């Protein structure tokens, strides 16, 4: 039986991690169908149909799907699930909120946040904030799986031409009402997909001081991250948090500034290809995962870092 991928989108475009989830889905079974639920989401459905790994798109539209409420989504996906062996989506806040609701309706024990497909019923997943990896085999007939997007490459985004079928909408769940979403708009790359991430921690000492990080990030074309300590202290908003309960990032270059390296922070960044740590405490745990460590006061090091970057003729973007 085929795999059903749940697309994440904003009614206009696919959210980027849908492509990573599509890759994971195609590793489970070559027959991947994708469901897209929304309101006026034709353009996103069209993009979904162009992913070469997707063989069929099911588009379901209704006004009550505009804001992606899990209580509205779950019943329609449960209905579709009859025809599929696996239901798959990204383990970001969209998928984390939705998939367990589907799994419970199907009486299935969900496998969360997989980082590798070993076989259609066996997966590798991190536990204890990534301090251990568990190989798990699910014995449920229907398998509900969320995937860690940064552990799978995004699939090709064009060249496909899947048929788009209209699906039947379900009833509205009247006990949950969407009020508003406050998205922080930024011209910088998204934290989850950026090639370079520059992150600040408690060592930044204030929200104002984050402008030192902003300068470096602008120069490098990088996304801005933060440790939980910096978010809790109010230096920066929660959507920047990297860690076990924040975002997991795997950039080519991760620069940790004034971050001590608590276990839960390391869980969100230690798979990065190259890690730089700048910290005045030479014993800070962050140095144990850093490829390049600089023991220095960040308030001296960051202006120098800008100077050195300004001296370079070219910077990769």
């Amino acid at each position, binding site marked *: 039986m085929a795999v059903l991928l749940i697309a994440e989108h904003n009614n206009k475009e696919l959210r980027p991690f849908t492509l990573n989830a599509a890759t994971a889905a195609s590793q489970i079974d070559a027959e991947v169908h994708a469901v897209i639920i929304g309101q006026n989401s034709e353009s996103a459905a069209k993009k979904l149909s162009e992913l070469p790994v997707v063989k069929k798109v099911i588009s379901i539209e209704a006004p009550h799907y505009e804001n992606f409420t899990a209580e509205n989504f779950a019943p329609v996906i449960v209905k579709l699930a009859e025809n599929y062996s696996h239901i798959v989506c990204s383990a970001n*806040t969209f998928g984390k909120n939705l998939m367990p609701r589907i799994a*419970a309706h199907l009486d299935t024990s969900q496998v969360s946040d997989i980082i590798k497909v070993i076989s259609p019923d066996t997966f590798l997943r991190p536990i204890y904030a990534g301090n251990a990896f568990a190989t798990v085999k699910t014995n449920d007939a229907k398998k509900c799986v969320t995937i860690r997007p940064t552990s799978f490459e995004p699939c090709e985004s064009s060249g496909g031409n899947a048929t788009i079928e209209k699906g039947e909408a379900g009833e509205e769940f009247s006990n949950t009402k969407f009020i508003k979403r406050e998205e922080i708009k930024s011209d910088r790359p998204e934290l989850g997909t950026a090639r370079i991430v520059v992150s600040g921690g408690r060592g930044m000492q204030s929200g104002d001081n984050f402008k030192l990080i902003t300068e470096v990030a602008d120069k490098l074309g990088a996304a801005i991250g933060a440790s939980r300590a910096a978010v809790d202290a109010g230096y920066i908003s929660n959507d920047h948090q990297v860690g076990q309960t924040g975002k997991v990032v795997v950039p080519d270059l991760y620069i940790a500034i004034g971050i001590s390296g608590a276990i839960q922070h390391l869980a969100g960044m230690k798979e990065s290809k190259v890690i730089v740590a700048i910290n005045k405490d030479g014993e800070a745990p962050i140095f144990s995962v850093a490829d390049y460590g600089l023991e220095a006061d960040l308030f001296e090091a960051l202006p120098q870092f800008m100077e050195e970057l300004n001296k370079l003729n070219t910077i990769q973007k």
Partner: protein
Amino acid sequence: MKILVAVKRVIDYNVQIRVKEDGSGVVTDNVKMSTNPPDDNAIEEAVKIKEAGKATEIVAITVGGEKSQETVRKALAVGADKGIHVKTEGVLEPLAVSKIIQKIVEKEKPDLVFMGKQAIDDDCNQTGQMLSALLNWPQATFASKIEVKDNTLEVTREIDEGLETIEINIPAIVTCDLRLNEPRYASLPNIMKAKKKPIEEINVSDLGIDTTPRVEQIKVEEPPKRKAGIKVANVAELVQKLKNEAKVI
């Protein structure tokens, strides 16, 4: 209004966990255990709502072995009124736990169920959502702000893009994020008082639920180690290494 709060006993978040040599799991003997951190936020929020005169009773529940009761006792010490310990042995998956809590909800009839958004041991992030599916109640996951209104809650949720606000009708499930509040410490007199508060013990076998695991844990291993890095002397050397050695800028 009555609030049921679910708490889980896990390895303390400060402990560097060790994988067992036979690959059967992680070492839990002689390791410091605590309440799952966001479950502390869940208890704290319930206590604050009661202090504001908007709730009348807080019941703390845990599901697990003999020692799990410590987490309920701790919840009682910070303000829960009574405890429930559903005694189980062996591995329980979130699906089984949510079925157990569903039975308790049917019996206790709370208006709200609070719990942490995720347990820091298995990192599943499932139980609250599964429970709300089983009960067909609204769910507000990853809550960083809760406002209690007449028959509704207005909840601000932390999502990848920023923040989302929803209104949910009571009865409802809320899973709590770490920034919801600052959990208090239990005072010594309150710890003493908590020893006299009632904890109801229930054997899972009396609930008539099949809790057999559906997911086999085949092996647990250490993640691949990063190769040791180097310390650079100054910023100029750092930039030079990033440019010419790592070739990332």
